[in-house]
């Protein structure tokens, strides 16, 4: 039986490789994982996939967790880091309940492997507030009662807060688009729209005030 040399890093091979060699060193960057994987591939080893220590940067802090390469980011956040604000509802990318930010971009944590998050800046619902001080979107959600059972709420908040980061003057259609992937079974959508639009309006007001102040100072 001939041995076919591996010339490409398939997902499966990559996982096996990473699982094999990394047990002794913490993989703390995407480059480190790639390096480990390449070495494993060159040696054509195919044992694994065992747990490996990886470093995740979550809500401004580094955490080292020992996980199997197959663990999703959602599972790792919830089961390994105890950050259960990120909810798992469909576990296949169709409901957005697990929305987190990766380098500031809304991302589905159930569709992302934890090892693919190494070296990235992860923000979860727990990291959106400053201690007990709510993010303006969270405060507006409470004010407008944009929640009932609350299971979709963290994902909704993350989607709406991300919208306001990239669009300071959203219209209703923009908010609907931003949460078009976030399913809610209790039917809180209208209040989600109202809460988000109000934060945007307040942001505009604050911006206007700042402009005025600047003008006065000038």
């Amino acid at each position, binding site marked *: 039986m001939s041995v076919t040399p591996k010339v490409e890093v398939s997902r499966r091979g990559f996982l096996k490789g990473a699982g094999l060699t990394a047990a002794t060193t913490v993989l703390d960057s995407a480059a480190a994982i790639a390096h480990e994987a390449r070495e494993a591939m060159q040696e054509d080893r195919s044992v694994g996939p065992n747990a490996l220590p990886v470093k995740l940067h979550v809500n401004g802090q580094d955490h080292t967790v020992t996980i199997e390469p197959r663990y999703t980011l959602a599972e790792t956040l919830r089961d390994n880091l105890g950050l259960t604000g990120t909810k798992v*509802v*469909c576990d296949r990318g169709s409901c957005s309940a697990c929305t987190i930010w990766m380098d500031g971009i809304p991302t589905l944590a159930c569709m992302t492997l934890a090892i693919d998050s190494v070296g990235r800046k992860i923000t979860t619902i*727990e990291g959106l507030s400053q201690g007990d001080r709510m993010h303006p979107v*969270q*405060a507006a*959600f409470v004010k407008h*009662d944009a929640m009932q059972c609350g299971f979709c709420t963290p994902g909704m*908040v993350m989607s709406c807060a991300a919208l306001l980061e990239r669009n300071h003057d959203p219209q209703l259609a923009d908010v609907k688009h931003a949460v078009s992937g976030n*399913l809610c079974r209790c039917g809180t959508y209208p209040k989600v*729209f109202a809460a988000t639009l109000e934060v945007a309006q307040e942001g505009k007001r604050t911006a206007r005030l700042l402009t005025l102040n600047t003008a006065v100072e000038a």
Partner: protein
Amino acid sequence: MAAEIMLTGELLQESATQQKLPADKSATTRVDKFVFGIPQNGLTEIEREVPLDEPPPLPQNSELLYIGKPTPRYDGAAKAMGRGKYTADVQLPGMLYARMVDATIPHGRITSIDTSAAEKLPGVKAVHVIEHTYGLAELRDPKQEVPSRYPVIRYAGQPIAGVAAISPQIASDAAALIKVTYDAMPFVVDRQAARAADAPAVFPGPADAAGSAGGGGGPKGVQQVGNVHGPQRRNVGDVEKGFAEADAIVESEYFTQVQTHSALETHGFVVDWKPEELTIYASTQGTSSVRDEFAEVFKLPKSQVRVITEYMGGGFGAKFGAGNEGVVAANLSRKAKAPVKLMLDRKQEHIVCNRPDSHQKLKIGAKKDGTLTAIKLESYGTAGVGTGAGTAGPATNLYKCPNLLTEEYDVFINAGPGAAFRAPGHPPGCFAFEQAIDELAVKLNMDPLAFRDKIDDSPTRKVERKIILERTNWAKRRQAGADSGPVKRGMGIAQSVWYRFVNMNSSCEVRVSRDGSVELMSAVQDLGTGTKTLLAIVVADEFGIPPADVVIRIGDTRYPIGPDSGGSVTAGSITPAVRNAAFQVKQKLFAAVAPKLGTTPDNLVLRKGQVVFKNDDSKSYSIKQLAAKLPTSEISARATRGAEYSKERLTYGGVDYVELAVDTETGRVHIEKVFGAHDCGRPINPMGVISQINGGIIQGISYALFEERVMDRKQGYMLNANLENYKILGAREVPEIEIELVENYIAQSSTDAAGIGESAGIITLAAAIGNAFYNATGVRMRRIPMTPANVLAALGKASLEVTA
């Protein structure tokens, strides 16, 4: 697993039995005057005989400090910040994760189950094979079943076993290693096919299903021929005579689909089996029913079973009792000697519960002046391996009619069991009945709203119709099919009825400490409906402190018993107990501190948040100042809900108005505007009530336009058990929604509160959309969901294989 209360859309006459009315009229009562009626009609007063320990009557909401004022959700910040701990989030030291193994065939006998490979997998701590499956109908005569070592499989996805391991991933690996072999039997997953004389029998003999504490379940002991169970028949007057007297008759068939609950948090439990106590974290609508069922199944005293539900991710009727997953989790925990978390996955959630479908034949007759003369309904529906597909609630209880005949049949098929689902039987029943009423109005050449003024004697719905007439475009309604272009617009209304149920298992304790802190404790749970908030409001109003200052501790059976949340019973059942306890502890506080203030307790009264002397307004204290004078470090009072003040049978309801556009080329239906006018007694927190109505309307649109369980007829399993192919309404399909609450002072309890879960729009929307669709196109949609394919078929633009 017996049903405590049945909420299947039964006749009012039968369903008011839970109310225990005062029998003993010794000197323990007094007569109070209560505010009564609907503000729009002018409020009046009514006298009621009430027990002496009941608090004085409340004035109308506008005169109260917190009751009736929009109040932000008690746990809103925790939810918005991701801090609420749901059952799915519970983590205990040494906790294991469990997975269920489900049947891969729709009907058959298990010949072997090999768990050895799973047990050998490193990290696996326990395996449990189910001995008895709950949730299916049970044979009246078990001897009709050929004896079998394992439970007979009657639907694909039926739970068979569970496995617990140190991680969810290993539990999944282990579940895949459990080998089950079957002796397959013929199956049927189609309601119409199951009615045939030669259809495969789902059960080898007559079988009945119990409902849950949330309702569902069908009649017991009725005739069963093949898979057809029933009818449950109700016959009042003589319908044939009624039709003979009619000037106009409408007669049609209607079809509705199976809807799955799709609560975002799946069913699940964390069970910690210890010799001294069984602790259960449950995603449930009833901590008490869960405790009772675990005690029953494991033959434990209730005192050794503790159930906790701090946060709950939606139930909609499907989450009562222990469930198969709860029993499996407890067995695994007992075997592994460690806490076990078992949450169903999304596929399992879609399969284990649903709202039954229906095929309804409906005939209504009326005289020229609109007087109804006869209503006849025959309905067939499938609740899979369960029962409870009856749809006669609206036809029976919405309007008075001297001649009524309803016959409800359940049809067994090899699919997951039906369960109570928000107003069981009413959304499909209303879809048919309120469209037929609309059609009758057209036939009588009457305005559909005016027609309802004629036949509906509910004073609240009369006010609600008036609001809709004044606040919507109804007066500008055009002839059916008036638009000439491909996009046609129309408007329609439909009405709902639901029943005032009260659960007497409603108790609480209110505690005041010397530092002024106030706590409320009850086992009642908050599903997301806002129970915590409305309890805080009731206590706050009694003490004159902000609702946010009241500490609410609920969802734990260590506290006094609370009602299960099904059938819109929670607010109406628990709030009087809460107000009574708060009132009683306040009286104790006054009695304890009055001597220190140099007065008598009866000279103390709460006004605008301050306790003042009745005879001297200048003497004013906060509750905190008074509590500081307590001789002991705390005082408390416990109260249980008293009987309803009158025997009157009450209903709630609503009227919903829809504007829509139908694209007759693509078959798409766009809902543009919904206006809902609804009543639920005295609203305690209008903000929360409106949230629930929003939700009911949105679920109702979702039911009308999108949702449908699809079964593979050849293979016998659910094809779309996920959230991408089982479509629920998303943000882009949300119309403009406006809601008006109608206060209705009913003088039935110390709070007059009532629930809104059922009559919140889920009942009416499919019918209102159907009526608007007719107004837009001149064509009746008698089948939901109104998908493009079904719409084009109804418009005669595409052929659709009629399957039901």
